[in-house]
Protein backbone atom coordinates (compact mmCIF):
# COMPACT_ATOMS: atom_id res chain seq x y z
CA UNK A 1 0.00 0.00 0.00
CA UNK A 2 1.13 3.50 -0.76
CA UNK A 3 2.31 5.29 2.36
CA UNK A 4 0.14 8.18 3.47
CA UNK A 5 1.98 11.46 3.49
CA UNK A 6 0.77 14.31 5.60
CA UNK A 7 0.35 16.32 2.37
CA UNK A 8 -2.46 13.96 1.34
CA UNK A 9 -4.45 15.37 4.23
CA UNK A 10 -5.51 18.34 2.09
CA UNK A 11 -7.72 16.06 -0.04
CA UNK A 12 -9.54 14.67 2.98
CA UNK A 13 -9.85 18.15 4.47
CA UNK A 14 -11.65 19.39 1.37
CA UNK A 15 -13.85 16.30 1.28
CA UNK A 16 -15.00 16.65 4.89
CA UNK A 17 -15.11 20.44 5.13
CA UNK A 18 -18.89 20.63 4.73
CA UNK A 19 -19.75 17.99 7.30
CA UNK A 20 -17.02 19.17 9.65
CA UNK A 21 -18.69 22.57 9.85
CA UNK A 22 -21.97 20.83 10.61
CA UNK A 23 -20.25 18.91 13.42
CA UNK A 24 -19.04 22.06 15.08
CA UNK A 25 -22.56 23.39 14.99
CA UNK A 26 -25.30 21.41 16.58
CA UNK A 27 -24.85 17.69 16.80
CA UNK A 28 -27.91 15.49 17.22
CA UNK A 29 -26.10 13.06 19.47
CA UNK A 30 -22.99 13.02 21.62
CA UNK A 31 -21.23 9.90 22.86
CA UNK A 32 -18.72 10.24 25.70
CA UNK A 33 -16.39 7.30 26.28
CA UNK A 34 -14.95 7.30 29.81
CA UNK A 35 -11.14 7.29 29.67
CA UNK A 36 -9.89 7.24 33.24
CA UNK A 37 -7.21 4.79 34.34
CA UNK A 38 -9.95 2.27 35.07
CA UNK A 39 -11.65 2.72 31.69
CA UNK A 40 -8.38 2.44 29.77
CA UNK A 41 -7.34 -0.70 31.69
CA UNK A 42 -10.75 -2.26 30.94
CA UNK A 43 -10.57 -1.65 27.18
CA UNK A 44 -12.06 1.81 26.56
CA UNK A 45 -9.52 2.65 23.87
CA UNK A 46 -10.67 -0.17 21.56
CA UNK A 47 -14.28 0.83 22.11
CA UNK A 48 -13.54 4.45 21.20
CA UNK A 49 -11.55 3.42 18.17
CA UNK A 50 -14.13 1.02 16.72
CA UNK A 51 -17.00 3.42 17.51
CA UNK A 52 -15.28 6.18 15.58
CA UNK A 53 -14.65 3.82 12.68
CA UNK A 54 -18.34 2.77 12.60
CA UNK A 55 -19.42 6.43 12.63
CA UNK A 56 -17.03 7.16 9.78
CA UNK A 57 -18.28 4.23 7.69
CA UNK A 58 -21.93 5.07 8.30
CA UNK A 59 -21.24 8.78 7.65
CA UNK A 60 -23.09 9.85 10.79
CA UNK A 61 -22.19 13.50 10.48
CA UNK A 62 -24.48 14.65 13.27
CA UNK A 63 -22.91 12.43 15.96
CA UNK A 64 -19.93 13.65 17.95
CA UNK A 65 -17.63 11.49 20.04
CA UNK A 66 -15.55 12.67 22.94
CA UNK A 67 -13.89 11.30 26.08
CA UNK A 68 -14.03 12.02 29.79
CA UNK A 69 -12.29 10.86 32.94
CA UNK A 70 -13.28 8.36 35.58
CA UNK A 71 -16.89 8.62 36.66
CA UNK A 72 -16.34 6.82 39.96
CA UNK A 73 -17.86 3.50 38.97
CA UNK A 74 -14.63 1.77 38.04
CA UNK A 75 -15.90 -1.78 38.42
CA UNK A 76 -18.45 -1.24 35.64
CA UNK A 77 -15.96 0.09 33.08
CA UNK A 78 -15.76 0.42 30.11
CA UNK A 79 -18.56 2.95 30.19
CA UNK A 80 -20.05 5.44 27.76
CA UNK A 81 -22.69 8.14 28.07
CA UNK A 82 -25.09 8.76 25.20
CA UNK A 83 -26.85 12.08 24.93
CA UNK A 84 -29.48 12.67 22.27
CA UNK A 85 -30.49 16.33 22.02
CA UNK A 86 -33.54 16.99 24.16
CA UNK A 87 -33.41 13.57 25.90
CA UNK A 88 -31.90 12.66 29.26
CA UNK A 89 -28.38 11.15 29.07
CA UNK A 90 -28.03 7.35 29.29
CA UNK A 91 -24.99 5.66 30.87
CA UNK A 92 -23.96 2.30 29.45
CA UNK A 93 -21.72 -0.05 31.45
CA UNK A 94 -19.58 -3.21 31.06
CA UNK A 95 -19.13 -2.40 27.39
CA UNK A 96 -17.50 -4.39 24.65
CA UNK A 97 -16.92 -3.37 21.04
CA UNK A 98 -19.97 -5.43 20.03
CA UNK A 99 -22.25 -3.91 22.70
CA UNK A 100 -21.17 -0.41 21.68
CA UNK A 101 -22.00 -1.24 18.07
CA UNK A 102 -25.48 -2.39 19.07
CA UNK A 103 -25.96 0.80 21.10
CA UNK A 104 -24.93 2.88 18.10
CA UNK A 105 -27.43 1.12 15.83
CA UNK A 106 -30.28 0.94 18.29
CA UNK A 107 -30.01 4.09 20.42
CA UNK A 108 -28.15 6.63 18.32
CA UNK A 109 -29.52 5.68 14.91
CA UNK A 110 -32.99 4.34 15.75
CA UNK A 111 -33.60 6.26 18.99
CA UNK A 112 -34.46 3.31 21.26
CA UNK A 113 -32.45 2.99 24.48
CA UNK A 114 -30.57 -0.33 24.70
CA UNK A 115 -31.99 -1.18 28.13
CA UNK A 116 -30.00 -4.39 28.57
CA UNK A 117 -26.68 -2.48 28.65
CA UNK A 118 -27.79 0.64 30.52
CA UNK A 119 -26.62 1.23 34.08
CA UNK A 120 -30.13 1.56 35.44
CA UNK A 121 -33.56 1.86 33.95
CA UNK A 122 -35.55 3.68 36.56
CA UNK A 123 -33.71 3.80 39.87
CA UNK A 124 -36.19 2.60 42.41
CA UNK A 125 -39.35 0.55 42.53
CA UNK A 126 -41.91 1.68 45.07
CA UNK A 127 -44.55 -0.96 44.58
Amino acid sequence: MKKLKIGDLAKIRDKVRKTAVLRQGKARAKITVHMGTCGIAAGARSILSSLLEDIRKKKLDDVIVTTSGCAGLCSREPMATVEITGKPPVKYVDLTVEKMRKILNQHIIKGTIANEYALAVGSERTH
Partner: protein
Amino acid sequence: MDDLSLHVLDIIENSVSAGATIVEVEIVEEIRQNRLIIKIDDNGRGMNKEILAKVLDPFYTQKTVRRVGLGLSMLAQAAKEAGGSFDIRSTPGKGTHIKATFVHDHIDRKPIGDMAETICAFIVGSGINIDMVYRHRKDNAEFVFSTADVKKMLNGVVINHPEIIAFLKQHIRDGLDEISERSRK
Protein backbone atom coordinates in the same frame (compact mmCIF):
# COMPACT_ATOMS: atom_id res chain seq x y z
CA MET B 1 -2.59 -2.23 31.59
CA ASP B 2 -1.59 -4.70 28.86
CA ASP B 3 0.97 -2.53 27.12
CA LEU B 4 2.94 0.71 27.42
CA SER B 5 0.81 2.63 24.92
CA LEU B 6 -2.14 2.26 27.32
CA HIS B 7 -0.01 3.62 30.17
CA VAL B 8 0.92 6.59 27.98
CA LEU B 9 -2.75 7.29 27.19
CA ASP B 10 -3.53 7.16 30.90
CA ILE B 11 -0.71 9.54 31.84
CA ILE B 12 -1.50 12.11 29.14
CA GLU B 13 -5.08 12.23 30.41
CA ASN B 14 -3.51 13.63 33.62
CA SER B 15 -2.05 16.44 31.52
CA VAL B 16 -5.56 17.25 30.31
CA SER B 17 -6.78 17.49 33.91
CA ALA B 18 -3.79 19.72 34.69
CA GLY B 19 -4.92 22.24 32.08
CA ALA B 20 -1.98 21.65 29.70
CA THR B 21 -2.09 23.20 26.22
CA ILE B 22 0.89 21.23 24.91
CA VAL B 23 1.71 17.59 25.60
CA GLU B 24 4.87 15.99 24.27
CA VAL B 25 5.39 12.25 24.16
CA GLU B 26 8.77 10.86 23.24
CA ILE B 27 9.65 7.21 22.88
CA VAL B 28 13.29 6.32 22.37
CA GLU B 29 14.37 2.79 21.54
CA GLU B 30 18.13 2.45 21.80
CA ILE B 31 18.50 -1.11 20.67
CA ARG B 32 22.29 -1.17 20.95
CA GLN B 33 22.21 0.14 24.50
CA ASN B 34 19.27 -2.20 25.15
CA ARG B 35 17.21 0.66 26.53
CA LEU B 36 13.68 1.96 26.05
CA ILE B 37 12.79 5.40 27.33
CA ILE B 38 9.35 7.00 27.52
CA LYS B 39 9.19 10.73 28.23
CA ILE B 40 6.04 12.73 28.74
CA ASP B 41 6.18 16.50 29.18
CA ASP B 42 3.33 18.93 29.61
CA ASN B 43 2.87 22.60 30.36
CA GLY B 44 0.02 22.04 32.80
CA ARG B 45 -0.27 23.56 36.23
CA GLY B 46 2.29 21.19 37.75
CA MET B 47 2.51 20.00 41.33
CA ASN B 48 4.21 21.24 44.47
CA LYS B 49 6.69 19.14 46.46
CA GLU B 50 4.09 17.86 48.88
CA ILE B 51 1.87 16.48 46.13
CA LEU B 52 4.83 15.20 44.11
CA ALA B 53 5.99 13.17 47.11
CA LYS B 54 2.62 11.42 47.16
CA VAL B 55 1.86 10.76 43.47
CA LEU B 56 3.54 7.37 43.39
CA ASP B 57 1.41 6.18 46.26
CA PRO B 58 -1.32 4.15 44.54
CA PHE B 59 -3.77 5.35 47.13
CA TYR B 60 -3.21 9.01 46.38
CA THR B 61 -5.44 10.86 43.93
CA GLN B 62 -6.65 14.39 43.30
CA LYS B 63 -9.92 13.07 42.00
CA THR B 64 -13.06 13.46 44.01
CA VAL B 65 -14.98 10.63 42.34
CA ARG B 66 -12.84 7.83 43.68
CA ARG B 67 -10.28 7.59 46.41
CA VAL B 68 -7.35 5.81 44.74
CA GLY B 69 -5.00 7.09 42.01
CA LEU B 70 -3.08 4.20 40.41
CA GLY B 71 -2.10 5.77 37.06
CA LEU B 72 1.45 7.01 37.75
CA SER B 73 2.24 4.28 40.24
CA MET B 74 1.35 1.61 37.66
CA LEU B 75 3.73 3.08 35.07
CA ALA B 76 6.48 3.33 37.71
CA GLN B 77 5.89 -0.29 38.60
CA ALA B 78 5.98 -1.38 34.93
CA ALA B 79 9.39 0.35 34.59
CA LYS B 80 10.80 -1.19 37.76
CA GLU B 81 9.61 -4.67 36.81
CA ALA B 82 11.54 -4.32 33.54
CA GLY B 83 14.85 -3.40 35.18
CA GLY B 84 14.28 0.31 34.64
CA SER B 85 13.55 3.44 36.60
CA PHE B 86 10.97 6.15 36.92
CA ASP B 87 11.42 9.85 37.43
CA ILE B 88 8.91 12.64 37.79
CA ARG B 89 9.68 16.35 38.07
CA SER B 90 7.20 19.12 38.31
CA THR B 91 7.16 22.88 38.75
CA PRO B 92 3.97 24.56 39.90
CA GLY B 93 2.68 26.82 37.14
CA LYS B 94 5.09 25.40 34.55
CA GLY B 95 4.42 21.74 33.97
CA THR B 96 5.38 18.17 34.64
CA HIS B 97 8.07 15.92 33.16
CA ILE B 98 7.93 12.17 33.42
CA LYS B 99 10.60 9.73 32.35
CA ALA B 100 10.31 5.97 32.50
CA THR B 101 13.17 3.76 31.36
CA PHE B 102 13.11 0.04 30.66
CA VAL B 103 15.62 -2.65 29.73
CA HIS B 104 14.52 -3.15 26.12
CA ASP B 105 14.78 -6.92 25.98
CA HIS B 106 13.81 -7.57 29.62
CA ILE B 107 11.44 -10.51 29.80
CA ASP B 108 9.00 -8.50 31.91
CA ARG B 109 9.09 -5.41 29.71
CA LYS B 110 5.57 -4.84 28.43
CA PRO B 111 5.25 -4.43 24.66
CA ILE B 112 4.96 -0.85 23.41
CA GLY B 113 1.52 -1.58 21.96
CA ASP B 114 -0.37 0.55 19.51
CA MET B 115 0.88 4.13 19.81
CA ALA B 116 -1.19 5.24 16.79
CA GLU B 117 -4.35 4.25 18.70
CA THR B 118 -3.16 6.09 21.81
CA ILE B 119 -2.33 9.33 19.98
CA CYS B 120 -5.64 9.21 18.09
CA ALA B 121 -7.69 8.46 21.22
CA PHE B 122 -6.09 11.52 22.80
CA ILE B 123 -6.89 13.66 19.74
CA VAL B 124 -10.55 12.52 19.74
CA GLY B 125 -11.00 13.74 23.31
CA SER B 126 -8.62 16.68 23.58
CA GLY B 127 -7.09 17.39 20.18
CA ILE B 128 -9.04 20.56 19.52
CA ASN B 129 -7.79 22.34 22.64
CA ILE B 130 -4.46 20.66 23.30
CA ASP B 131 -1.53 20.27 20.94
CA MET B 132 0.34 17.00 20.90
CA VAL B 133 3.86 16.32 19.71
CA TYR B 134 4.82 12.67 19.38
CA ARG B 135 8.40 11.67 18.62
CA HIS B 136 9.47 8.09 18.24
CA ARG B 137 13.12 7.28 17.68
CA LYS B 138 14.53 3.85 17.03
CA ASP B 139 18.33 4.08 17.03
CA ASN B 140 18.96 6.72 14.36
CA ALA B 141 15.56 6.67 12.66
CA GLU B 142 13.01 9.16 13.95
CA PHE B 143 9.32 9.83 13.32
CA VAL B 144 7.80 13.12 14.45
CA PHE B 145 4.10 13.92 14.51
CA SER B 146 2.68 17.26 15.58
CA THR B 147 -1.00 18.16 15.75
CA ALA B 148 -0.12 21.86 15.42
CA ASP B 149 1.22 21.12 11.90
CA VAL B 150 -1.86 19.06 11.09
CA LYS B 151 -4.17 21.85 12.29
CA LYS B 152 -2.39 24.39 10.08
CA MET B 153 -3.08 22.19 7.11
CA LEU B 154 -6.69 21.56 8.18
CA ASN B 155 -7.33 25.27 8.03
CA GLY B 156 -10.33 25.30 10.36
CA VAL B 157 -11.64 21.76 9.80
CA VAL B 158 -11.84 20.00 13.18
CA ILE B 159 -9.00 17.57 13.86
CA ASN B 160 -11.25 15.02 15.60
CA HIS B 161 -13.42 14.35 12.55
CA PRO B 162 -13.64 10.55 12.05
CA GLU B 163 -12.20 10.79 8.51
CA ILE B 164 -9.26 12.87 9.74
CA ILE B 165 -8.64 10.50 12.67
CA ALA B 166 -8.64 7.50 10.31
CA PHE B 167 -6.08 9.27 8.13
CA LEU B 168 -3.85 10.28 11.05
CA LYS B 169 -3.91 6.77 12.52
CA GLN B 170 -2.69 5.30 9.25
CA HIS B 171 -0.12 8.09 8.88
CA ILE B 172 1.34 7.33 12.33
CA ARG B 173 1.34 3.57 11.67
CA ASP B 174 3.18 4.11 8.38
CA GLY B 175 5.69 6.42 10.07
CA LEU B 176 6.41 3.86 12.78
CA ASP B 177 6.76 1.05 10.22
CA GLU B 178 9.20 3.19 8.31
CA ILE B 179 11.51 3.83 11.27
CA SER B 180 11.43 0.12 12.13
CA GLU B 181 12.58 -0.69 8.60
CA ARG B 182 15.22 2.02 8.57
CA SER B 183 16.64 1.06 11.96
CA ARG B 184 17.14 -2.52 10.80
CA LYS B 185 19.39 -1.45 7.93
